[in-house]
């Protein structure tokens, strides 16, 4: 349920209509000019069909300088953003040698492992010297080192499942596993706001895909009952397998999944549950074990748990955790295991060390401190933003907070004004989000100190006033409340 201010909806639709009309006009004139000039490629088919690249050419390129900003330092709490200039109105951007030191509110650096860490980095350098940067082979041929087996055991232990398998890339984990788990004659029911990797994997599997309303358990139940009653399309035979795919934290909404209800429904209908914990593993839960720990769901009830190491562990790659038979089957069949290069050894060592820090096995309490700090930081930041009158999505305890912008012109305004004041934010627009609901997504990290957060709040408040995105009434400050209370007495 999103609350949209009605006037913002009307103006957003009107702005997009205007942008669309201007884009079409420009295309029309471009077609006329191109008729006159001769193309050197006579007889070749065009790369893009007529309408396919319209959005990129006429809308995205106008505000291209707000996306893909190059950085020249590790993505810690403060980092260096390279400045770019454009001579032809944002059609092409050139990097300059100037950098500006900005506060990083965009990296998925939830526990602060993205920059050099006193426990992890020496061990990573040592494993780099010992094992070399790449295994240069697939897991099956010669790419399984002692680090890989140690990593899989440590991940399985951390997540709470009997066994785990690790891949070199997070996106590939979803898109290469789903086709292996389910095929034609099966049914995948996925949340309407699932990540592109899941959508890709589901499409590639050949199974029938149905979508249920985002995070709405009763709609999931309705869809399940309908589909089980109808059976496969056209033959109406019973489904071979049903998998329900949900995410732990949805990266565009910052919402936690309603896991207990969904698991209960799936148990009733004997459907398998596939939980994608890309953003929640390591970042939520008392000991960082993810959304199952936070919501009190037994990990034995979730059949397949997937996650990535890019967010909380400061590395790269993804894992699948499940029962021993499942992991054994995956190791024989999954193309990402059999044909793709295994995860790089220093990256594997980084994950092993960061898991040790989180669990406190390195002998210090830094892990528990980091977890407590990220929880405090994100709750503080979210409540302050809401008090200022911004529309912030997401649940408490979730380190991802999108601030709603709605209008397409506020996206570059917010992004550029924040960059001028040395705060780097990530803005997201259509087609990654629905058309009306453009937003700026803030990711809080354990590496942010209280001063960083207060500076960020000041800058965002100032820019929010300039751009006009304080859609909700702001709460009056405490002093004014106390004054009115005194007057009554």
């Amino acid at each position, binding site marked *: *349920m*999103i*609350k*949209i*201010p*009605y*006037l913002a*909806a*009307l103006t957003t*639709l*009107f702005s997009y*209509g205007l942008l669309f009309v201007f884009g079409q006009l420009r295309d029309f004139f471009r077609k006329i000019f191109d008729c006159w000039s001769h193309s050197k490629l006579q007889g070749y088919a065009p790369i*893009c*069909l*007529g*309408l*396919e*690249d*319209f*959005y*990129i050419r006429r809308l995205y390129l106008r505000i291209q300088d707000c996306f893909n900003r190059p950085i020249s330092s590790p993505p810690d709490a403060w980092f260096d953003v390279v400045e770019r200039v454009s001579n032809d109105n944002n059609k092409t951007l050139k990097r300059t040698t100037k950098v500006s030191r900005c506060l990083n509110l965009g990296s998925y650096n939830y526990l602060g492992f993205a920059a050099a860490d006193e426990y992890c980095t020496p061990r990573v350098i040592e494993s780099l010297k010992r094992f070399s940067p790449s295994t240069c082979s697939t897991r099956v041929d010669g790419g399984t080192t002692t680090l890989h087996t140690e990593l899989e055991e440590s991940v399985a232990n951390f997540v709470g499942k009997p066994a785990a398998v690790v891949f070199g890339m997070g996106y590939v984990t979803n898109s290469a596993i789903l086709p292996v788990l389910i095929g034609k004659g099966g049914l995948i029911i996925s949340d*309407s*706001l699932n990540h*592109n990797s899941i*959508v890709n994997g589901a499409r590639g599997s050949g199974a029938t895909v149905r*979508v*249920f*309303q*985002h995070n709405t358990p009763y*709609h999931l139940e309705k869809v399940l009952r309908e589909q089980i009653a109808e059976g496969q399309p056209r033959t109406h035979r019973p489904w071979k397998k049903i998998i329900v795919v949900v995410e732990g934290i949805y990266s565009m909404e910052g919402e936690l999944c309603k896991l207990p209800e969904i698991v209960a429904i799936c148990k009733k209908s004997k459907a398998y549950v596939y939980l994608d914990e890309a953003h929640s593993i390591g970042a939520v839960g008392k000991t960082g074990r993810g959304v199952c720990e936070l919501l009190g769901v037994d990990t034995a009830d979730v059949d397949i748990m997937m996650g990535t190491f890019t967010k909380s562990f400061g590395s790269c790659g993804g894992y699948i955790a499940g029962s021993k038979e499942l992991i054994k089957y995956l190791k024989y069949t999954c193309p990402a295991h059999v044909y793709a290069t295994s995860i790089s050894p220093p990256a594997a060592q980084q994950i092993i060390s960061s898991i040790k820090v989180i669990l406190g096995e390195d002998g210090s309490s830094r892990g528990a401190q980091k977890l407590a700090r990220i929880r405090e930081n994100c709750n503080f930041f979210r409540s302050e933003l809401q008090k200022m009158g911004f529309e912030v999505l997401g649940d408490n305890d979730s380190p991802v907070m999108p601030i709603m912008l709605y209008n397409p012109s506020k996206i570059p305004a917010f992004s550029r004004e924040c960059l001028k004041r040395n705060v780097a934010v990530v803005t997201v627009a*259509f*087609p990654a989000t*629905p*058309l*009306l609901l453009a937003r700026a997504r803030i990711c809080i990290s354990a590496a942010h100190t209280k001063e960083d957060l207060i500076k960020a709040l000041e800058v965002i408040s100032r820019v929010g006033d300039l751009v006009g995105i304080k859609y909700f*009434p702001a709460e009056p400050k405490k002093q004014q409340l106390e004054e009115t209370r005194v007057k009554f007495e």
Partner: protein
Amino acid sequence: MANLYVQAVPPTDLNRNTEWFTYPGVWTTYILILFFSWLVVLSVFGCSPGMAWTIVHLSHFFVTYQCFHWKKGTPFSDDQGIYNRLTWWEQIDNGKQLTRNRKFLTVVPVVLYLIASHTTDYQHPMLFLNTLAVFILVVAKFPNMHKVRIFGINADQ
């Protein structure tokens, strides 16, 4: 007015090209755009109100025919071209016919036609042009015309 909020349930439509049409405020924006374009035409051309309504009706015909029934596919390539053979009208609501959105979009040109012909007192040649426009638009929106390409016009190779 600024404190009016609407609740929006995220729709289950996976096609990003058409799911924006299920959000609140779309119908109002559509009607407001038509009304304001009538005012703009009146002020720019300085013609009679009936003539202005006829101009709005005919330009609405051209624009909506081009956007809804001629252009096929989606303006971005993320969906790998699965909608490349379908016009926007055939894509909305996942191809389900006779939904609320489709009924609304069918009624709008008819209402515009009635206003245009009433305010021009049913005179020719405006009446003929208006009738032709509304006939083409309404026939194009029939459920029986789903994925039909008459005489191969606008069909793929």
